[in-house]
């Protein structure tokens, strides 16, 4: 049997009001999207605890995307600012840990930016395919 090309597992946290809408728009607009993506919808990017990101990595995600409304557009006034503060700590930690920085990315995507969402996911997937499986992936998980 021919080896199938390795397909990375990418977890994207999307906020209910903007980036999830963006993902939806991407689908409706029939933009080509890789099958590597797993979307987790949260009410606000401010809900994303760094713990969720660690858990995704430890369970075998090859990359984690944190997405939300553009700064200033948060449905809950300032949730995405909070997300940004946490993200900065996370980013530094991931760097210090020695995980490739491309594996954790932040992007602000509004509900109308379907194409931006699709491009973002495609770029990340291509990059992760170059990097190969995450070193934090547990044994026995592919």
């Amino acid at each position, binding site marked *: 049997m021919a080896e199938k090309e390795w397909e990375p597992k990418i977890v994207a946290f999307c906020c209910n009001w903007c980036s999830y809408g963006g993902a939806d728009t991407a689908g409706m607009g029939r933009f080509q999207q890789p099958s590597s993506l797993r979307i987790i919808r949260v009410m606000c990017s401010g809900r994303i605890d760094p713990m969720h990101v660690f858990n995704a990595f*430890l369970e075998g995600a090859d990359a984690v995307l944190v997405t939300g409304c553009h700064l200033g557009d948060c449905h809950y006034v300032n949730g995405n600012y909070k997300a940004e503060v946490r993200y900065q700590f996370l980013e*530094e930690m991931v760097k210090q*840990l020695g995980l490739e920085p491309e594996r954790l990315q932040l992007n602000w995507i509004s509900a109308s930016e379907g194409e931006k969402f699709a491009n973002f996911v495609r770029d990340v997937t291509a990059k992760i395919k170059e990097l190969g499986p995450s070193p934090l992936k547990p044994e026995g998980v592919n």
Partner: protein
Amino acid sequence: MVEVGDRLLGYATDPNVRSKGASGGLVTAVLAAALEKGLVEGVVILKRIDEYEAVPVITDDVQEVLSSGGSMHAVPVNLAKYVVGKKVAMPGKPCDVRGVIEQAKRNSVDLSNTYIVGLNCGGSMHPVLTKEMLIKMYEIDPEDVVGEEIEKGKLIFKTKSGEEKSISIDKLEEEGYGRRESCRYCDVKIPVSADLACGNWGVIGELAGNATFCEVMNEKGKLLLDTAIEAGYVEVRPADEKSISIREKVNSAMLKLGDEWKEKVFDEIPDKDRLKYYIDQFADCIDCGACKEVCPVCSCGPDSKCTMFHSLADNYKMSMYHMVRLLHLSDSCIGCGQCADVCPVDIPVTTIFRRFANPAQKNRNYMPGMDLKRPPFLEVMLK
């Protein structure tokens, strides 16, 4: 009456307390006065067991406080967690004080009820290593030691027979003895976040050895000292320029040495090896949870993110426990070294935490435990 910002030289009026204390018994007398005059309900003291062992206890007995003086470099405990939820006064090294401030930031200590007398600290030593060092380097029987002192970069031990033997700390540390690793690169030597900052640096001339240099840091410090003076427990006089400049000089020399150690300890691990290094270091973890239990800045209690989302049943490359703690401590770790001391499998926990905390704190120009003005970062918005 003293004023905030005053720099003074002081000592206990009681000759017994004065001779028993490491340098004039000022700290002991101030704590005793605070208790006697009802400023606090108890005082945290180190209950001495022997030269190398003491346990922190909270006492409401003034006599017990008065008899507790004396420096103990070989007892590396952190007192911050003992004051949680109590109305007490405590003496403290800079790391004790910083721990209390961090607890206060997280609302588990009410600072208006807690009085802290800070002590200058050049570092503490591990008791068992100290005993080993005495035998190997000093050729002294550890049981014969009656006192110890750090002076001009030298560690001095006095024995029962009145002998003194000193070896330079640099030499001891080259051999792997001397101060604990976290103390070597510590960057706060004078406890400026305490209410009173005390120590023997800058005490010169006839007062050397039996007076304490004391800086009044805030209103609470003023109250503490005034109470002690009014009660007749201590006497103070203003410190002269020379004293002040010598204290500053000692401090900056110590800090410079600390920076050199920092370079040495935190050698860069190449990007590609780092993850493997951390995974390997934590692989021997036996999930005792002691590093969290002793951590003076952790205030979550037994049920916290690091424990509740960690399960023994998981077989992850790194445990959730460590991941969460690495992140949570990157803004608040004060580098006290308690976690490494109690780790049953000798993981260099403090050094690892500092590897994450150093860049995070440096980038934000932030030092945890210095004041209440800047809250913990993960919990609030920047700007």
